[in-house]
């Protein structure tokens, strides 16, 4: 039996749907132009590609390419209004990270409280007021 190396193991653990989704989000945000686009859309909700191209030093074609990448990553919503396609910022993939911090942080606080109960001062000095 072979024991896979750590790098293989990361891959094995990472091969989940949620991880792929997170990877897409982080991949989409790794590009400075796409971050600038997101910021522009957050300031001007329901912007069109043409409007965005006028705000950024790139072509409408390039804007469309980045908008597609951001939409695929779940960071933008597309709505069609007549001949126009409007883009809206959806922060759901980001709030996932905030939720993780809160949830996992609370778990550690619980574990630390448990340890304090087991090994803390109380054991030696008797119960203390909270």
């Amino acid at each position, binding site marked *: 039996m072979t*024991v*896979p*190396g*750590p790098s293989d*193991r*990361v891959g094995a*653990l*990472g091969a*989940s*749907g*949620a*991880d792929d989704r*997170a*990877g897409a989000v*982080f991949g989409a*945000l*790794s590009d400075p132009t796409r*971050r600038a686009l*997101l*910021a522009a859309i*957050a*300031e001007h*909700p329901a912007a069109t590609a043409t409007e965005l191209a006028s705000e950024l030093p790139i072509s409408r074609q390039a804007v469309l390419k980045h908008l597609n990448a951001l939409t695929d990553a779940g960071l933008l919503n597309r709505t069609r209004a007549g001949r126009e396609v409007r883009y809206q*910022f959806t*922060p759901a993939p*980001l*709030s996932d*990270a*905030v939720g*993780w*911090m*809160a949830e*996992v*942080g609370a778990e*550690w*606080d619980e*574990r*630390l409280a*448990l*340890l*304090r109960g*087991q*090994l*803390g*001062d109380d*054991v*030696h000095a008797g119960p203390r007021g909270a």
Partner: protein
Amino acid sequence: MTDRIERELWLPATPDTVWDAVTSDGWLADHVRIDLRPGGDAQFDSDGRARSGWVEDVSVPERLIFWWAVDDEPASRVELKIEERGDGTRLRIVETRPLEVLDLVGVPLPGAGGSTYGPALVAA
């Protein structure tokens, strides 16, 4: 910015005692099985939640670094550092999701009063 949680605790106990406590059943999970060597398997089972992972690095009783994940969630890396301090022991915990939440500064969260992602995290 990286998803990162840090905690620190000082305990009036020896590093060995702290090591035993943090690697025993009931702390990281109800049932803990860790093969204490780099690359070793780790299994953390609690009521209704099973995590599996592997050991990145271990040095008894001062350091344990492992990865764990629930099936459908991204894996995270946990670092436990145990250090003799004064009459006791300092336990330091760092859990990270190394998928970087890259440079999100400047991307406002709608509905968050115009605050940016970074400060929102700090406030949480």
